[in-house]
């Protein structure tokens, strides 16, 4: 198994797009956390108001691009193998296909979790450092805020691996680069724009099970913060996306000809 993980690690990092994508995702999250914290947010009245560091670091729209980026890297890890034909060599070398998927999932999830940790902790630190006025440093001293920041960091560390696994499942199902890219963007990026948890019953229910809003519920900062879903259910939603994606990837890869 360590050999399989080693092989997947080499495959992941031999692509130029991996460090570029992850680097951009972290840079964007850090930049936006600082920028949101310094400039505040546009209030309903149209003026710019001061903003809580947690809200600045875990602002929903700022995390959509990192979500898409990790989803794409996850998707590329399957689609790229099909496109180059490497999948055949891999499966000849290791006929136990489930073990290949397990190794891939482990490597991708670990890398994405590390990326998310960097983006979340760095973003929060930057947001605290650049906050103006009375909100400066509040989230690290006050115990309620400290636990809220911890929850937000945990939720984000779960969010990016989930997005990558969703990408992997979509990539395994479609196997075509452009179709996969389009579907991942539509699912992770456009879905939350199209269906918001403030519409009618049906739209609200669908929106609540999206990773974006489940994560927003857990960070208690982004959109979905005021949702009727409890924190436990939101954790379960994210876990269910991960589990479902792993099952789809395993079953489809196991069943289908390569």
């Amino acid at each position, binding site marked *: 198994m360590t050999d399989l993980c080693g092989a997947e690690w080499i495959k992941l990092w031999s692509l130029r797009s991996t460090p570029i994508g992850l680097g951009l995702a972290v840079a964007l999250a850090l930049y936006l956390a600082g920028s949101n914290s310094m400039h505040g947010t*546009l209030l309903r009245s149209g003026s710019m108001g001061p903003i809580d560091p947690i809200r600045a670091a875990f602002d929903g729209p700022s995390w959509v691009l990192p979500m898409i980026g990790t989803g794409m890297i996850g998707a590329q890890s399957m689609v790229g193998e099909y496109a180059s034909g490497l999948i055949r060599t891999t499966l000849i070398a290791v006929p136990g296909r489930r073990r290949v998927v397990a190794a891939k999932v482990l490597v991708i999830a670990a890398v994405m979790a590390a990326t998310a940790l960097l983006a979340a902790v760095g973003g929060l630190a930057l947001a605290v450092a650049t906050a103006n006025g009375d909100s400066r440093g509040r989230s690290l001293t006050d115990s309620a805020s400290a636990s809220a920041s911890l929850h937000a960091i945990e939720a984000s560390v779960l969010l990016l691996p989930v997005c990558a696994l969703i990408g992997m499942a979509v990539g395994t199902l479609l196997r075509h680069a452009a179709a996969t*890219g389009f579907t991942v963007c539509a699912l992770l*990026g456009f879905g939350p724009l199209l269906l918001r948890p403030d519409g009618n019953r049906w739209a609200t229910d669908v929106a609540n099970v999206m990773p974006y809003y489940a994560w927003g519920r857990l960070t208690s900062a982004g959109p979905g913060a005021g949702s009727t879903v409890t924190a436990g259910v939101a954790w379960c939603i994210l876990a269910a996306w991960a589990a479902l994606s792993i099952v789809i990837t395993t079953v489809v890869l196991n069943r289908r000809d390569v």
Partner: protein
Amino acid sequence: MSTPTKGSRARFSDLVAAEWIKVRSLRSTYGLMVFGIAFAAVAAWWLGHHVKVAPGAASGFNPLIYPYNQDTWSFITVLAATFGALAISGEYSSGLIRATFIAVPARHRVILAKSLVVATVMAVFGALSSVVSMYVAGAALSGQLSGLSLSRGDVLRAAALSAALPVIGALVGMAIGALIRHPVGAVSTAWGVLVLLPNLLGSGTIGLGKAVEAMPISAWMALADTSQPSPHSNPLPTTVFAWFLLASWLLLSLATTSATVVRRDA
């Protein structure tokens, strides 16, 4: 030894025919168009179906925002951009671009023919989506709001602009495909540039409303009068500037595609 015969140079109509065969022979062309039209129809029905207008209040509603909804047409535009991006990046990833340029060394003519075919296909797609969307929304709104018919000037204008929006989207997608040449990279960039980035910039946390104002979808909203009533909507460009924006997106995309493909190694 064969001597070149007079008139052996490929005529422009031959290039257009070749590009048409390329578009026609891909299954994804049909899938994408059917999906887009179905999406427009379902969205129009969904948006129109939930409208309840109090008696006598109909004059306060703009019926155009149901068939020509901002989110629906952003999606249609991105779908078109995906089509455009694939038209270029697909040739690079399959290697067909080399055969094409060996057959026709004048690359800008190939790009012109390709743009013409892609634009025509997308115009047909846009017109179908636009008309289907309007009639479905009209049916869903019956009894609540009326006026969705092509005989009205403002509706015809919105329908025509909505049919043209996918053309611009596809040409932008072609430029992105020429710059990035990798299908996944090109498709995610198209999404990013046309939908996700404007949304991020317009969400107010960065305060770059000016950048959102320059997007094709903003120009479309300004010209077709399809902006949603909202407590803090982004400012829209003026009519003249909106026409200028649409024209610049179109011409700049064409110029980018042509310049990149001509300059770079195939």
